[in-house]
């Protein structure tokens, strides 16, 4: 088996003695879509925070593309090609859709610390930004302020922004949560499209979406891995069925 693009070994995080994530090991293979599911409070978002280094693990190691990133800062992890989204849509509210995506396109050299240059320096990125917005269905919203977009479109904008970084690995935290059914279909199609040539790890409550998109599924319960496998394996597992029913049936 080839080396996984993202690997966590015995990852744990405790908040003042509370084990939010306990001894979790994950192997994310390159080019796959991997789902992280589990009841609310199972530790999925905390896992994402650890993998993207927004939180420092209490113990365990993380490797990205063969490189130990356990002690890296989150911005550095992002520059290495792992970009995360947030559970609550994260857009730059008072900026336009174009400006939002533009921020993902600014290069490090010559385009970011230069306070003496004009923003005209960034015009070269504009065509690409428009392309990304069109691709997620925001063709008519280039100049709309992110704050004025309806929720579903905000998520689409967030996705376009993430894609602007051209990430090798994307962590998507509940990309369809709080959406109307037709928007869920739209986002699902989008994710499948943009996942080509990339690796995606997503937290998703909608099992329909999971079965449609994901190659592999890890089920978390109380901070620990309950089961891992493809959809059929996981769906048939009695502990999963039990925990989902026992856990209030939240899927």
């Amino acid at each position, binding site marked *: 088996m080839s080396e996984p693009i993202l690997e966590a070994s015995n990852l744990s995080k405790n908040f003042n003695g509370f084990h939010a994530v306990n001894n979790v090991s994950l192997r994310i293979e390159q080019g796959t879509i991997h789902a992280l599911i589990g009841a609310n409070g199972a530790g999925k978002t905390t896992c994402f925070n650890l993998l993207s280094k927004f939180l420092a693990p209490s113990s365990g190691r993380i490797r990205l593309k063969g490189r130990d990133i356990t002690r890296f800062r*989150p911005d550095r992890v992002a520059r290495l090609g792992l970009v995360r989204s947030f559970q609550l849509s994260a857009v730059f509210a008072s900026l336009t859709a174009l400006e939002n995506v533009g921020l993902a396109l600014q290069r490090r050299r010559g385009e970011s*610390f230069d306070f003496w240059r004009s923003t005209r320096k960034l015009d070269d990125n504009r065509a690409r930004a428009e392309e990304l917005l069109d691709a997620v269905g925001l063709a008519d919203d280039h100049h709309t302020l992110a704050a004025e977009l309806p929720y579903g479109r905000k998520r689409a904008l967030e996705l376009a922004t993430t894609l602007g970084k051209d990430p090798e690995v994307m962590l998507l935290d509940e990309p369809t949560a709080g959406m109307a059914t037709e928007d869920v279909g739209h986002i699902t*199609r989008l994710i499948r499209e943009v996942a080509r040539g990339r690796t995606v790890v997503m937290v998703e409550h909608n099992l329909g979406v999971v079965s449609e998109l994901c190659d592999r599924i890890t089920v978390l319960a109380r901070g620990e891995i309950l089961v891992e496998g493809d959809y059929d394996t996981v769906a048939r597992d009695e502990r999963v069925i039990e925990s989902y029913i026992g856990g209030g049936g939240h899927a």
Partner: protein
Amino acid sequence: MQTALRLVAVLALAALLAVPLFPQIVYPVFVMQTLCFMLFACAFNLLLGHTGILSFGHAAFLGSGAYITGYCAKFLALPAELSILAGTLTGAALGAVFGALAIRRSGIYLAMITLAMSQLVYFFYLQAPFTGAEDGMQQIPRGTLFGLLDLHNDVTLYYVVFATIAGGLWVVWRTVNSPFGAVLRAIREHEPRAISLGYPVARYKVVVFTLSAGLSGLAGSMKAIIFQLAALNDVHWHTSGDVVLMTLLGGMNTVFGPAAGALLVSALTRYLDPFGAWVTVVIGVVFMACVLVFREGIVGKLQHVLRRRPREKRQAVDREGMVRTSE
């Protein structure tokens, strides 16, 4: 609509340039002082309005600019341009230190840290042997600029101050409208998202702190040359509070709004001077009125009113459902 604002700006510029010709109408020293506060407020707003950082210690930078410029001109007999440069750089260096220490926190904690550090700076100038303590550092020589321009000439001084402040304001404007400024806005709007896009946010904050403090130092340096005095007032926390007030009054979501706020506070302070302690009360009332009537500040409100029409039309188009897929 934008033309209306532009017209006002051009008229204001013409009026400012004409000030030394009519000293009997408006006192040039007052105008110069106001110009310094305008730069101070706009520089401060690089942090508050454009990055979302509330510093409550900006007097330290203004005051250091004044004291160091005074020290260089008076005790080291350096020419004006070097004294001003030294004051500006001291402000910037101090800003880098403040920034590096303060940005580990955010919000009110960050404000408290900057306040604490600026109090240390205050006590330094209170105790240091060269500052004249409560009397201030007096009789700072104005000298000549580049060995050419004699700053003892009031008209020359005025235009030099005008050009310097204009230059400082240009730097503020350029910064806001630069690739760097775009990243600052991202940090202000959603810091974790900016990090997740790969921006080393801490470094950006230190740089903008340094820039803001350097320009504040420049404002202080010019003030010392104008008044030939550097006084504890300039490093006092009251001044740190005043600049917050000016910025909020003028509008923190604009580039030059804080300058309008500075003008308003400066004018109120000056023309209400005969009423003594009532000045504070009046400014307080004006401030409350502004906050209640237009939260985005005077200039912010103005821009809003001038722009409202086209946006309302656009929104009507935007308010449709989401899915317009590319099928």
